[in-house]
């Protein structure tokens, strides 16, 4: 009796989590899959007609936005690596006693809603706003220069939004790298750059892998940055899904796009994991 209880305990403890996932993830996903195969409209109602044709139809219509989303996501991810890796490295190796403070500073923007933060970027980057206005009056930028409503603004906005998701996993891995290992590399004739490339970077790959997933997936699917900072030429697939759902009430189309995006991201993630070596992924999962 006692033995049965001990073997069942972990499963019972995991139960709330499983129920949560089933109720709020698995059921809606199946519901959406079902919805994508329906036809009809909001007035007359939707009937299940197994309309698989909606899939080639949405790909043909929205391939441009899909590609743009992936490109923006990729650019934002690369930007996050470029900014976030040195930041994580510095906090982990040179943060000293103030590591916790630096991490808190990094997370501080999360205390303000994402939409508000993105809107404040709109003010900052406005054609005659604090940054561009000052540069223009100083003669450093031509009068016609603008940042808003460009792909640059959207990519920077995405990188800004998701930067902490890149820094934190890299930091977590670097923090555990024994400093003596880096010293050992120096001792064995490695320059600072060689020690980084041969020892620190390989050891931080699991964190980098996690960071890329955490930034690339949500930034590819993001719609806030594109709608606030982008213009009509910078529409991302997230904006399409949002408008098809909430404006056009075209539920089957919106569901189909969602699944296309999900499929592309899943295929992308698995080929990425394969390329990096499953060992690294397992290590990430083990954490």
């Amino acid at each position, binding site marked *: 009796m006692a033995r049965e209880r001990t073997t069942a305990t972990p499963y019972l403890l995991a139960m709330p989590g499983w129920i949560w996932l089933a109720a709020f993830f698995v059921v809606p996903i199946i519901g959406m899959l079902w919805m994508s195969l329906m036809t009809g409209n909001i007035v007359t109602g939707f009937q299940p007609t197994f309309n698989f044709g909606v899939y080639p139809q949405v790909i043909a219509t929205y391939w441009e936005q899909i590609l743009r989303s992936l490109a923006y996501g990729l650019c934002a991810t690369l930007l996050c690596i470029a900014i976030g890796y040195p930041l994580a490295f510095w906090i982990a190796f040179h943060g000293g006693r103030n590591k916790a403070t630096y991490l808190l500073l990094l997370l501080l923007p999360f205390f303000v809603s994402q939409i508000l933060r993105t809107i404040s970027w709109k003010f900052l980057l406005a054609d005659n706003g604090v940054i561009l206005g000052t540069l223009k009056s100083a003669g450093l930028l031509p009068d016609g220069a603008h940042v808003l409503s460009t792909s640059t603004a959207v990519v920077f906005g995405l990188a800004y939004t998701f930067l902490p998701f890149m820094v934190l996993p890299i930091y977590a891995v670097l923090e555990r790298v024994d400093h003596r*290992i880096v010293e050992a590399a*120096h001792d064995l004739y490695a320059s600072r750059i060689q020690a980084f490339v*041969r020892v620190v970077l390989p050891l931080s790959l699991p964190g980098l892998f996690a960071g890329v997933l955490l930034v690339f997936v949500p930034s590819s699917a993001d719609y806030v940055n594109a709608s606030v900072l982008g213009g009509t030429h910078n529409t991302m697939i997230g904006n399409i899904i949002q408008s098809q759902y909430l404006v056009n009430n075209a539920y089957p189309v919106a569901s189909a796009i969602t699944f296309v995006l999900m499929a592309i991201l899943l295929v992308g993630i698995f080929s990425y994991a394969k390329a990096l070596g499953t060992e690294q992924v397992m290590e990430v999962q083990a954490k």
Partner: protein
Amino acid sequence: MATTTTEETPVPQEPSTRGGGAAIALEGVAKAYRSGHGTIDAVRQVDLTIEQGEFFSLLGPSGCGKTTTMRMIAGFEEPTSGVVRLAGEDVTGVAPNRRDVNMVFQSYALFPHMSVADNVAFGLKRKKVAAVEITRRVTEILELVELGDRAKYKPAQLSGGQQQRVALARALVNRPSALLLDEPLAALDLKLRQAMQIELKRIQREVGITFVYVTHDQGEALTMSDRIAVMNKGVIEQLGTPAQIYETPATRFVAGFIGTSNLVTGVVARGVGGYSRLDYSDGQQVLVRTDAISGEHVLVTVRPEKIHLGKHQPGTDLSRLRGTVREVVYMGSTTHYAVDTAQGTGMTVFQQNVSDASNLAERGDTVWLSWRPEHSYALPS
């Protein structure tokens, strides 16, 4: 007994006769760390010459500056003042990767993502040694540390002792002018540690590289070293061969840190041909080789195994103290006696359990302790 090792060749007493000159020289080296409001002097003043091919130990309690001294030789710390020389060349301010010394870390610091062979090859690859040569030398060194069959393993798949030998091989394969070992055996259990002590000494003899060995374990230092520098509070208290350090401790700290020492205080009564005599009541006396003048207070050391314990009063040519046996501890090959002497000093005496020495004294017995004058040394008190 302290200098007895299991090797066949005797420990050389004068390493400088080997030729080759000084491998490492520290000239007036000091290191101060800034901390909070003031500074902490980790190393106050160290002057040191380590000969080519020598097994040299830096011995001392934690915080004595021995590790900082080694890290200054490696280049991980820069001295606040003074000069570090490797093979005569001033390397002060030179980065670790440009110094021809390699370090074996206490935690081994193996690269966890690399195989044993890649770990060992790391230094040679950085030095751009030809691939064929690297393979040959890695194989050779792994054979030397008896890990030839573990080349493909990752460090995490090895035992502590094996990881230790990988760390050693990784440093040795570069044939540095000196190998710096920072308490390399501290993480191993006693049996393995003793085996590795012999192993390290064998490897050092085979490769002939200068070893600088940092340890807080006096037994380890005595067993392996050609010479030892005993450090305390940032300075070298005594520098000498293991026998010199053990038999003739120069300071009270060394006497207390290395092995067990008995300390006897007294006033010099008069000198007797190079010896001074300290008189006590009832014919008790301590003879010591010192130039102290009559009336001077001195502190005299004597090792527990040099003392003879007996029932009868010894001759006047020996130091002799009377006392009562407080404790008898049978240790197998020896018996340890704790004796309270008449003038109040507690003495520890080790007696070999040889065939005719059965049960010399029991608890509560009155005994005479005696030792030859040349076995005690006067320390500045």
